């Protein structure tokens, strides 16, 4: 009864289950006392007043109405005194033992090859297929002249008894998948492994690839129980360890048992996660699954293209190969567009040394191209490993040339590298000639006035002819008032794209509010020449979730590699004095070293300013992204950003709907962004709050709702996460037009997973040693229970639960009021 009452008051069942004692306490006891003192006189006053006013009513009615009034008064005093329950409850907290099953693509490879008898014996023991020891006659010692027959017999008896693994078991072992072996081993050992754990520990089962998924493991079932983790075939070991530590939320972890081949292709660093686990005293017991013997394999370990080219360009696809077990074997590397072979190169493989080659072709027609690079598999390569013999490269061939203007103050390195790159980019030209217009203020100042005017377009009409304008750290002398007015008009009214790269001398702190209002950032008050990092603590760049999806920051088609690339970018020492992003800004990258009440300092951001896109870079050292790779990442970023912000409309053309999907390639389960510019039949931007598009995958379709951008009319955005591999089409069918607008997306599993498919025992050993755990043989799981340390803890918790701010009290008040009003009405008093 009490428990029911407490439940009514909103006390959680879990608390009630463990409740020891509940005590009623008042926050303001004095109010209760005052109420107790005043209640009688007040009740008397109520009664007197009622009697005076309602002298014609029956006594019972008078009495009832008095009671209702006094009840409400009483309730008021009680509520004002702040009653609450002080609840003590105890519960048992068992230490956690988590079994982590790696279920990534590499775990679907065979657990073998097993070669030695000992390896077979361990494997057989693990799957419960071990035979009983054979009679000792099979263990013999050749008779020797100086040994008697009894001595020989004693010697033989001291020999370790050999384990016989029959041929069928050997075959089974050489075929069993790594993930299956892990699960089977746990099932076989369940009596000695799982049963002893049940009482003392909170046993949890988790499977992981990229994401982590808890599941229920039933040792009685022999069927595969590991659910498919819907996150693609990546292996994020560090992330699953971190997940367990975070989910424990202070609960002791007696051990993490990790069944894995030690391959890690993304997510949190395993070493860092292991340190976190060590800090909370959570040992990792690593169970290596897989063979350390390098499998015979040829794999494509890296693939790179510029991504965006123009018709007539020579497209270069740089391929890096790695091989093992095929030394001095010739191999042909092919570049294909569908079934058409574009180029081939021959190589002679050299052991495990990486080799590079470049495949080329001329871009003849516009469009998106998904090119395949393929190395025909050798017969000796395992079937499962042949997936790493090919990879996909994406190239967008454009028939348009972007007109670009680049202006900077001094010729800083970013300017020098960029100007050379855009001059070499066949997809970029100038307003007046084949080369983009490039202007360094230092040289401009030395020109005659006439030449200065000629070199610097300063009317809105001239500036509107550009697709993209890039401004560096130039002074208000060259970017004078007239220029800026014209620029603002060109951006807002004509949709010209603008990229502003900050600098310590002028940009953007020396410019007026009108110019700064174009930018997707807000400067600090009295911002002077930026913020310098101390030598011992340089700034880093951190990519946001939007940045990871964004085409301009996609330096690698593989998302895991993309994250890795950005996380390894060199540090830098200067950032613009930015306070916060503008309200309409999309922040693509941040400076995590500087944080205020608006969050981390935005470093790369963009927004729509009228019709145009404006991107801002708050650092002036993107040349640092050239470290070790040259133009590869530097110009991939700049080339993509130039095109992203570039004006896409020609004022003379009728506005037509268009749809973009970004990025063009994702892994299963990864998010892709849909951007739709929707216009009516007469060219007006659509004003719906939402629009629907359909996505067609290899086996099915779904609808995705896009939400209108409140800052840009006609722009709609949304996200979807395709799970099936293959080509997906995103279609928008306007109501008032038969023409469907389409975008494409290719979904492919991570090519990282099978690049190095062998057992990475050193990583597993590191995880174990860092955390005070051990590496355990898969045949020896029964030894685990005694390694888990920890006792269930009895936790006493004191809680306070308010008992007046709940439905019950409200209902009571309402019922009393209703009774009062009801009686009055029925009696004709109201």
């Amino acid at each position: 009864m009490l428990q029911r009452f407490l439940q009514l008051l909103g006390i959680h069942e879990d608390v009630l289950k463990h409740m020891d004692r509940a005590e009623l306490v008042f926050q303001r006891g004095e109010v209760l006392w005052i109420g107790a003192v005043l209640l009688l006189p007040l009740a008397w006053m109520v009664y007197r007043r009622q009697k005076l006013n309602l002298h014609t009513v029956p006594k019972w009615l008078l009495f009832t109405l008095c009671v209702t009034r006094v009840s409400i008064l009483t309730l008021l005093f009680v509520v004002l005194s702040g009653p609450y329950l002080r609840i003590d409850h105890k519960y048992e907290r068992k230490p956690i033992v988590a079994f982590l099953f790696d279920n990534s693509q590499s775990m679907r490879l065979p657990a073998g090859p097993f070669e030695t008898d000992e390896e077979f014996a361990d494997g057989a023991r693990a799957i419960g297929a071990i035979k009983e020891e054979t009679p000792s006659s099979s263990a013999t010692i050749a008779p020797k002249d100086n040994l008697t027959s009894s001595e020989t017999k004693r010697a033989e008896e001291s020999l370790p008894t050999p384990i016989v693994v029959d041929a069928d078991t050997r075959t089974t072992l050489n075929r069993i998948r790594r993930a299956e072996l892990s699960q089977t081993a746990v099932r076989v050992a369940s009596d000695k492994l799982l049963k002893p754990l049940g009482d003392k520990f909170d046993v949890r089962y988790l499977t992981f690839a990229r994401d982590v998924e808890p599941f229920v493991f039933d040792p009685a079932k022999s069927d595969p129980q590991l659910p498919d983790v819907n996150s693609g075939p990546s292996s994020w070991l560090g992330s699953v360890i971190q997940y367990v530590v975070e989910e424990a939320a202070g609960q002791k972890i007696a051990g993490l048992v990790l069944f894995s081949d030690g391959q890690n292709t993304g997510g949190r660093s395993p070493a860092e996660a292991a340190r976190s686990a060590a800090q909370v005293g959570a040992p990792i017991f690593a169970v290596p699954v897989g063979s350390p013997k390098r499998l015979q394999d040829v794999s494509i370990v890296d693939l790179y293209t510029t991504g965006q080219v123009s018709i007539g360009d020579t497209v270069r696809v740089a391929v890096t190969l790695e091989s093992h077990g095929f030394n001095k074997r010739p191999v042909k590397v092919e570049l294909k567009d569908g079934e058409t072979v574009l180029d081939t190169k021959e190589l002679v493989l050299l052991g495990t040394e990486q080799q590079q080659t470049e495949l080329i072709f001329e871009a003849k027609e516009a469009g998106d191209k998904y090119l395949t690079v393929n190395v025909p598999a050798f017969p000796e390569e395992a079937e499962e490993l042949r997936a790493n013999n090919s990879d996909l490269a994406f190239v967008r061939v454009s028939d348009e040339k972007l007109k670009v203007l680049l202006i900077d103050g001094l010729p800083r390195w970013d300017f020098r590298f960029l100007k050379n790159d855009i001059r070499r980019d066949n997809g970029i030209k100038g307003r007046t000639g084949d080369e983009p217009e490039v202007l360094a203020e230092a040289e401009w100042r030395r020109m005659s006035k006439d030449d200065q005017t000629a070199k610097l377009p300063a009317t809105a009409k001239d500036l509107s002819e550009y697709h993209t304008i890039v401004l560096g750290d130039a002074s208000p002398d060259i970017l004078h008032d007239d220029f800026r007015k014209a620029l603002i008009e060109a951006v807002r009214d004509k949709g010209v794209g603008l990229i502003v790269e900050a600098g310590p001398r002028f940009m953007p702190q020396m410019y007026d509010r009108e110019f700064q209002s174009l930018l997707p950032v807000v400067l600090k008050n009295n911002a002077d020449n930026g913020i310098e990092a101390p030598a011992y603590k340089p700034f880093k760049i951190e990519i946001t979730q939007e940045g990871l999806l964004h085409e301009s920051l996609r330096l690698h088609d593989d998302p895991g590699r993309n994250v890795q690339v950005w996380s390894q970018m060199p540090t830098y020492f200067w950032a613009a004095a930015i306070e916060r992003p503008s309200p309409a800004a999309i922040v693509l990258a941040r400076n995590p070293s500087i944080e205020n009440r608006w969050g981390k300092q935005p470093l790369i951001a963009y927004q729509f300013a009228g019709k145009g896109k404006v991107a801002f870079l708050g650092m002036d050292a993107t040349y640092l992204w050239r470290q070790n790779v040259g133009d590869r990442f530097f110009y991939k970023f700049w080339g993509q950003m130039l095109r992203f912000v570039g004006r896409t409309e020609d004022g003379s053309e009728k506005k037509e709907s268009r749809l973009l999907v970004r990025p063009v390639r994702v892994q299963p389960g990864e998010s892709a962004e849909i951007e739709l510019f929707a216009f009516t039949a007469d060219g007006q931007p659509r004003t719906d709050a939402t629009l629907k598009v359909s996505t067609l995958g290899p086996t099915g379709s779904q609808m995705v709702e896009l939400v209108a951008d409140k800052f840009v009319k006609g722009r709609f955005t949304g996200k979807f996460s395709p799970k099936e591999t293959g080509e997906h089409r995103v279609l928008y069918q306007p109501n008032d037009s038969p023409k469907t607008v389409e975008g494409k997306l290719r979904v492919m599993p991570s090519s990282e997973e099978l690049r190095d498919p062998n057992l990475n025992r050193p990583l597993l050993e590191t995880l174990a040693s860092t955390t005070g755990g051990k590496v355990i043989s898969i045949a020896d799981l029964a030894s685990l229970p005694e390694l888990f340390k920890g006792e269930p803890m009895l936790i006493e918790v004191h809680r306070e639960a308010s008992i007046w701010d709940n439905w019950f009290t409200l209902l009571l008040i309402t019922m009393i009021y209703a009774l009062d009003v009801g009686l009055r009405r029925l009696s004709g008093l109201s």
Partner: protein
Amino acid sequence: MRHLGVRCISTALDLFIGLARCDSSRCRRTNPRRCLHTALQSFVAVVLFAASAHAQSKSPAATPTTAAPLTEQKVIERVTASVDRSLEYLASKQKPDGSWDDCNAGNALTILAMLGRGHVPGRGQYKEVLQKGRKYLLKTQREDGLFHSRRQAGAGPMYEHGLSTLATAELYGMDPDPDVEEKLRRAVQVIVKAQSPNGGWRYNPRPGDHDLSVSVMQIVALRAANNAEIPVPEEIIEKAAKYVRYCAHPNGGYGYQGPAQGAQTSAAGVVSLQLLGKYDDPSVPKTLDLLAKFPVEWSANSIQYWYYFHYYAIQANYQAGGKYWNDWHPRVRELLLDKQNADGSWDVPGGTAENAGVVGPNNIYWTGMASLILEVYMHFLPAYQR
């Protein structure tokens, strides 16, 4: 929930007061609306209790990640660590006046070595080292624009002038000192005026004689200045290219003052044509094939100026790319990494002409050169952008 509870209290109070008022029949007749209002108040609490707060979720940062590194990452780490140690050594040898050596070749090479690792004046670990070094270098420029050293490496100042101009050109734009721009322009003018009629340069800043070993340094300096948007007459460029071709041997290679196949000048010749934009000159691949035959070893052997040769040879192969780069750079890299001293400096193989008496003391020249050779992996110096 607490604020909702307070509303509950106030609602109850209102109810009570309202009910008290409603007792009066006169009140009921004259204020029917008040009674209705009172009745409606009872529903207010229901609505208030149904309210709930929603926390606005912020877009989280991308999860920081350090996935399994690329296989060549280990190579990158070794090179980076080696260069960092060498710069520490060089920084430690800077004199109070900002110089490292009485010869500006050493000063310029050290500044270039620091820039080549991505350090710039005014920022980071070596900001003051670079600022002092820059100040010293600029101070050595004469009124006529020539960078003048207290000690000359060759028979005249043009070796050092070429290197000093290159260093100043790379500093330009990354250092706000307006002196840098002005002095760079004057230094470029010295080079322009000193070009001989047949396109080459020699030890002294006047047109006349010529040799490829000095010429390459002026060519690189001019390329760097041109890259910094300082105009260099097209005629100068074409004459320089013509001169280099004049030194080309028909079977590959370039000579000191005419066709030959010397190691140093062959490397210098290839780099000269490449940086002059003549990547497709037929003498280039022939010379690269010739260079590939020179041994990469820690001895003078057929290479009299060991660091000079390797400084240009690695650039030549880098600019060419492909099999030339693939075959050349690992051997040079491993050799240099192996020969670095514990203090971060390098020595020179015995028997070369680049002894301390020629190139200066304290291993400055050797260490600066070795750093620049390894820094080809960094891709920071704009003058050498492929």
